Every structure is written in structure tokens, then in C-alpha cells.
């Protein structure tokens, strides 16, 4: 038994030595990745168990940050709930929308396709154009939606879309949906274009009846990598919504109606400088993302099954 293990190690070392060139080539990226991604995550994990205000050295306080987070911080619970709403609504909806648009656009002739791709991708390259939405959802009667509703006579006075607790979250979700036709959309188009046409022909011979079956049994399984990429992108982006909340609903939003985990994190990290507590929030977010990603991967494995 021991001998066997020893041999394993020898074999591994020999393997590494044989592929040393690859390791050297990979090294620059790996080092940078380690320093700028892995290390901060680990550090944050460590700091989350301490009290750290950037002036004094961190002081170990055990689970206190987490206990405070889950049992004392009502705002965090609101943020958690809002984030989950975002993730549950925008995540799947925009994922499916991305795929459907990609699928439809893929059917168009090449020149129109290129143009339409640009049109649909535009929202996410345009970056911080929340201002448009600010005009649309403006709280006075000059806001587009208010003006429209009042012109039609559906409402008599302007609605404070971005200042009324009842509407903030829905408005944010709509804007987020609009913004989310991004990278995963491009990835889906790429995936659809690399599709092996012969597979579809073979499927037709093997008794595929309609386009839905074609989609389920051939198209989707063969673009599983792109789907996975899209899912990961979509989940991380919908769980990390913060900018639009700050830009549209303000910071903090009315009665924390548009508060998300990331805005909570910003609050404690960059305003109050309670780094230990902020790290705990970040860790919780990290764990949530990890969990949802694992879950989606499991679900994606079922496609075409």
C-alpha cells in the first residue's frame, strides 16, 4: 500500500517534469491569477473572522461577524431577499431570452445577422447609460412613462417610480433585464454557428419530428460549453447587481427597497471601513455564487437526457 503510494508520487513527478514547458508557459497567467484572484478570496475569508478597521491590525473575533450578519442586521436580510429576487427573475429570464434571441438571429442571413447582433449587444456595451432609464422612469410628469400613462388617462398624477418602495425593485429588474443581453448572448450565437449541420441531418434520419426535438436533443447538447459559460456569466452578473441600483434608486435607496448584497458590501467596505464585516458579506456572496453555479451545472447536465 505504502509502496504503491510512493510509486504514484514518482510517476507524478516524472509527468510534471515531462510537461515542464507547459507549466512555464502557463506560469505568468497562473501567478497573476493567484495573486489577484485566489489570494484576495482567501484573504477575505480569513479577514471575515476578524475585526479590521484598516487602522489597527485585525483582531480575531470568531463567528461574531456572521452572527451579526444573520441575526442582527435587518438590512442585510432585505439585501439578501432583493438579491435573490434579482437572481431568480433576471437570471433565468435573461438566460432564456438570450438563447431565444440568439436562436432567432442565427436564422437570419449573414449581413442582417451581424447587424442584429450588434443591435442586441448594444445595451451591454453602452455601459452606464442609466440616464436614459432615469428619463423614462422619472418621477415627475415629464418622465416618459408617467407622461404616457397620464396622456392615456390611466393615472392622474405622476408615479414616483424610483422613490416608491413598491416599484423600485421591479423597475430595477426591468433595466437589468435590458442590460443583460450581453456576453452570453454572443457566446450563444458563436455556439450556434459552430453547430455541426450533419448532426441535424443525422437526427432527421433517426426520427426527429419537430424543431423542439431538434433543439432539445441536438442543438442544446452540442453547445453545452457555451450554455455553461452563459449560465455562469448570467448568475454572477445577476447576483452582483449594484451599479444600476445605485444609479437609479440612489444609495441607499428608499427604505432599502433596491438594496442588494453588493450595495451592502459597498456600504461596509468603502464607507464604514468595517473590513471584517464586509469580508463576511463578501464570503456569503461568494458561497451563494458557488452554490448556484454548482446547481446550474448539475441542471445543465440533464439537457438532452
Amino acid at each position: 500500500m505504502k509502496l504503491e503510494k510512493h510509486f504514484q508520487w514518482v510517476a507524478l513527478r516524472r509527468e510534471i517534469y515531462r510537461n515542464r514547458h507547459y507549466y512555464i508557459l502557463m506560469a505568468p497567467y497562473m501567478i497573476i491569477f493567484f495573486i489577484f484572484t485566489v489570494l484576495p478570496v482567501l484573504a477575505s475569508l480569513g479577514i471575515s473572522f476578524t475585526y479590521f478597521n484598516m487602522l489597527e491590525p485585525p483582531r480575531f473575533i470568531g463567528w461574531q461577524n456572521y452572527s451579526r450578519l444573520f441575526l442582527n442586521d435587518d438590512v442585510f436580510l432585505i439585501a439578501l431577499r432583493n438579491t435573490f429576487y434579482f437572481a431568480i427573475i433576471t437570471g433565468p429570464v435573461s438566460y432564456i431570452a438570450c438563447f431565444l434571441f440568439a436562436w432567432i438571429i442565427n436564422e437570419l442571413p449573414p449581413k442582417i445577422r451581424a447587424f442584429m447582433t450588434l443591435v442586441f449587444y448594444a445595451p451591454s456595451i453602452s455601459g452606464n447609460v442609466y440616464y436614459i432609464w432615469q428619463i423614462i422612469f422619472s418621477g415627475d410628469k415629464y418622465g416618459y412613462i408617467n407622461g404616457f400613462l397620464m396622456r392615456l388617462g390611466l393615472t392622474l398624477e405622476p408615479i414616483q417610480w424610483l422613490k416608491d418602495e413598491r416599484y423600485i425593485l421591479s423597475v430595477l429588474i426591468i433595466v437589468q433585464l435590458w442590460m443583460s443581453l450581453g456576453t452570453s448572448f454572443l457566446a450563444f450565437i458563436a455556439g450556434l454557428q459552430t453547430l455541426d449541420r450533419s448532426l441535424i441531418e443525422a437526427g432527421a434520419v433517426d426520427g426527429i419530428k419537430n424543431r423542439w426535438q431538434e433543439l432539445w436533443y441536438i442543438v442544446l447538447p452540442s453547445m453545452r460549453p457555451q450554455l455553461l459559460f452563459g449560465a455562469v456569466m448570467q448568475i454572477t452578473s445577476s447576483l452582483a447587481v449594484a451599479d444600476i441600483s445605485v444609479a437609479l434608486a440612489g444609495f441607499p435607496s428608499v427604505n432599502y427597497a433596491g438594496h442588494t448584497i453588493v450595495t451592502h458590501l459597498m456600504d461596509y467596505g468603502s464607507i464604514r471601513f468595517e473590513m471584517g464585516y464586509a469580508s463576511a458579506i463578501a464570503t456569503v456572496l461568494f458561497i451563494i455564487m458557488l452554490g448556484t453555479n454548482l446547481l446550474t451545472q448539475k441542471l445543465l447536465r440533464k439537457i438532452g437526457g
Partner: protein
Amino acid sequence: MIRSKKLFFIISLVLFINLLIGYSNAYADYAPPSYNYSYWRDSAAAPAAYEATRIINGELLGVGSLKEPTDIYVLNNERIYILDSGNNRIIVTDANFKLIKVIDSFDNNGQIDRFSNPQGIFVTDDYHLYVADTGNKRVVHLDENLRPVAIIDSPESELLAENFEFKPAKIVVDKAGRIYVMAIGVFDGFMEFSPDGVFTTFIGANRVKVDPIEYLWKLLSTREQRSRMVQFVPTEFTNLDIDEDGFIYAVSADNTDEDVKRLNAQGIDILRRDGYVPPRGDIRYTREEGPSRLIDIDVTDSEIYSILDAKRGRIFTYNGDGYLLYIFGGLGNSLGEFDTPVAIERVGDNFLVLDKALGEITIFEPTEYGRVVNEAIRSYYQGDEERAAEMFTRAVNLNANFEYAYGGIGKAFLRKGDYEKAVEYFKESMDRKNYSKAYILYRRETLRGYFPLLMTVLCILILCTPLIKKYIWRNIRGIPLFEKEELRYPLRLIVHPYDEYWELKYRRDKRVNLIISFVILALLSLTRILQAQYNGFLVNYNNPREFNSILEVVYVVVPVLFWCIANWSLTTLMDGEGKFSEIFISTCFALIPLILIGIPWVLLSNYISADEVTFYNFSQSVAALWCLYLLFVGNMTVHQFTPSKTVGTMILTVGTIGFLAFLCLLFFNLIQQLLSFAVTVFREILLRF
């Protein structure tokens, strides 16, 4: 021998009937027992809060008998104004009913003017007198020396019809001098007059109550027919009062939950109705009696208000949140009972009830219980929760059925930070909102102590998952019990219904399947019983007094049987392949999710707050939908139907169940009639020989 037996039977029967009559007699002699309504809307006995002590009439006052008095008004607990409508006069006394003066006329610009059948009276703090002089179709406003300030006789406005006839009946005046008049034949609410007597607007109209059937007729009829029909008009108010803050309390005899209203300056109803029963008088009544007819309302300090039920002569007192505090009074001939009560007022904590037909005023004084309850409500209203809790405790000692008091005690504990006690008391008072509030705090407090330990254990467990998977889980799976196929395939069925239902139909042993089906049914019954008994307070709305385990089993078994029978009888006609036993098995197997989701929640629901009830409801609906889906797949597989045909049969099955239920009802009804016929015949024979 036979004769003596018959004799014995007859004697015992007579005795029994006697007993019944005697019992009801004894009951009738009894003064109406005091009661209150519980959370479950049962009437629960309560000690009397008020006792009638005195009767005041015209002779006692020394002004001759009163003739159809209609209103009384108490000014700052020092002066009492009695409106003696039949004699067209106002009798003014002090708080002890010592006569001060009698007003029967006033000097109107040099002429002597009299009232004619006045119905309502109001007096302001500076002794200005407002009289709704109904017979003369005017409102008279007199100053402290009885000189007319303003006389409102025929208001003019675009809001009023040409032929409008102003018949004021009741009247209140707010601090700013605005006059609110309840006029006869006005459906648009109260008429509001500015202090100088100009009609400004209507406020607080009742909403139109529409009977859906009548509405349907109206829709179907022609314009001509419609014009001849009774129009839907809002009901009139029956009385009004005004509180210290200028809110108008109004009552109407509409028999809805909104009979009592608290109107703000805009005429919007802002009465809180958080009590166990809506503030509308009696909520339990026989059909012949009908609901309460509210005729007067009186509000005192601390938002306490009382309403007078003209039909049964009872006075119901509520606090500002709409909780019923106590009930007293009744119709009859003895002290504390009335013939035609028309008005109530309060002098301090004493009640005055004016009887129109008898022309007398009954004075009620609070008993110890009434005093304690009043004091408790007042202390709580003033924010003195400590004293309120003390008073509520005393009230509970006098009346353990007074559920509202437990909530008051709970609130004091909540304020003090004793969450555990608060939770207990809120549960006692069935106050789910506050219970949840207290419970969250209590749970946090408890969790905070265990949090580090809990998290550490959790982290260790997560880090050790691979090890657990490798060594322990394998061993658990290796236990012979888990190896049993019979235990595993029902569980596999709920996640892979298509494959497993097929296996169920064609591969597996039917006898074993049947046994498992019965076990599932038994487990589901058990789940229902556990749910009814042990579900958390926030999600459990079962009245523990009406709980019956056998009925719960029936509720499970009968629908399943109905479903199977209906489905079987339908599918035999629709070329379904399934036999009855197969249908039964597939249906039972489809019920597994209800058990799997239901049982953990029985435990979990005891540890949730109101916010988390959403999760409970969500998972219950998931279970139901999952069950429906399994039912669908099972049906499809058993009968070898296409999906659309399965959906069709399932819908038809539901219809058939309705039909079957109807037949059963008919059958039982007939049996019952037959039985009662037999019983009658038997009795007849007994009585004759």
C-alpha cells in the same frame, strides 16, 4: 310484564320531555348572561361589565313624563341634555340629574319660536346649542343665552336636487364649528355646513351594496324594465358621534362589516378592524332574529366606542383597534332591560341608555370587571403599558376567556424584553402579527447563543462531506432496510415517474404494490393529523375544539376513493386499459410528495416567523403541483392514453366526482327521511298504546 314495561317507557319519556321544558324555562327566567366573542367566533361567557343601578324618568326630574325622547347629550360630564321630542322641549340637568332648566322656546328676532319634533341635539363647550329641528325642517344654533346665532333652513347648492327637502335628524359639531348633519332621505353621506351655516359638501357616503343576482337581472333587463326596478342606492346612516380629535363615528343599519365607520375630514373610513370579530354587534344569530340593527354610537376618550343594537337592546363596546370589550343590556321588563332603546351616552364611566317608548333613562355603572377593563384600555392607550399589563392581568383573573387581555400582557413583556413570555401570551390571545414579531426576537436571542457552535459544526460537516460520502453513507445504504426494493422504488417513482409507473404497471408484483398503497394512504392520514395537531401557530388555523382525527382520515380516504371510482367508471367508457386496482395504486403513489413535504414542515413550521410562512405556502403548493403531475403521468401510463386525452379524462373525472357526491347526498338525504319517518311511526305507536 309487558304493560309495566310500556308504562315505564312512557313515564320516562314524559319525564324526559318535562326535563326539557323545565330546563328551557329555567333558562328563560335567567337574566341574559353576559358574553363576549372568542377568536373562533364562539360566544364565550364573560362576567358582567356593567350593572343597571337606576332609572330616571320625567316624574323624577319633576318635569312631567317624557314623551318619545329621541336623544341625549352629555357635556363634559357635567350637564345632561335630554331631547324630549314629543313635548318639543329640551331638559337640562346636571350630572346627578338635578334639574337646571327646561328649554321649550327661544327668542327669534323678537318672536317666540318653538321646536317641532326635534330629533338630534349637540352642545359645544361654550354652551352653544345645536338642535336638529326636524319638524320645522331646520337646524337651530343657539348661543349660551338661547339667542339664535344661525338658523339653517333650506340649504342651497348645485349638489342638491331642486325639490330637496331638508329634514335633519342628528347633528354633531366639530371644534372648528363645522356642522355635520345626518338628514333623513339623504344617501350621499353627511351634510357638512360651514360655521355660518352655508352648505359646503357631503362627506362619507356609504358604498352601494349590490346583490350579485339582482345585478345580473339588471344587466339582462331592458332599459324600460330597469327604470321600473328598485335603484341601487347606498344606505343611510342611522346615527353619528364625534370624538375629541374631530373624527366622526357613524353607524348604519346595513348589516355589513362596515356598519361602524370612523370618518376623517375627507370622509374616508379609517376605523381599525383588527379584532376577532368585526364591529357590527352580534355575529351569531338565528335566521329568524337576524343581525343587529345599530341605532346609536357613543365614543369616549381613548378611542373606546360603544354601539347600541336596537333589535336586541344590547350595547357593544370596542376599543380603538376594534376589539370587542364587553356586551351588556337586553330587551325586557326588568331593570337594565329596554323596550325601544334609541340613544346611549356616557357620563364618566357610567352609561345612560335612553328608551323612547318608556320615556326613561337607565343608568349603568361599571362592575369591578368593567372598571378593570376600561382602566386597562385607557392605560394602554396612554402608553402606560406597565399599568395596562397589571390591569389586563386582573381582567384575566376575572375572566379567563378575555383573549384580548393576554395580548395586552404580551405587549408589556415584549416591551420589557422578555420575548419568551411575550410569545406565550400572544399565542394565548391568537395575535399572529405580534406573535411573529416577538418570536423573531426570541429566536434571534436563542440562536445568538448557539451560533458559533452551530456554524463550526456545519463547516466541519461540509469539509468532511467527501469522507462522509465515502464511509458513512455507504454503510447506511448497506443497511438491509435500505436495500429493500419496496422502500426505494416509491421514492424513485416521484422523480422518474414515466419509467417507474411503467414498471409499476407491467413489472412489479401487484400484491406488494397494493400493500404499499395502503401504507401510503395511512401515512398521508397521519400527516394530516399531525398537521392539524402540531403545525406551528402561524400556519395552523384549525380550531382545536373541532379537531377530530377520524374525520381527518376520512378527508384523506374518501377523496381518493371518489377519485378512483370516478376515474374507473369514466375510463372504462373511454377505452382505458387500467383496472380498478391499477388506478388505485397509481393514485396512491402520486400522493407521496404530500407526505414527503408535509411531515418535515410539521416540525419546521413551529420555528418560523410570519415572513417565512411564504416558504411554507410555497412548498405546500409545490407538493400539490408535484402530486398533480404524478397523477397525470400515472393516469396516462395506466390507461395508455395520449397526454391530451389524459388531461381531458382528469377534468371529466373531477366533474364525475361532483356528480357522485350529489348522488351520495341524495341517497343519504333519502335514508334520513326514511329513518325519521320510521321514528315518527314508532313514536306514534308508542304514544297511542
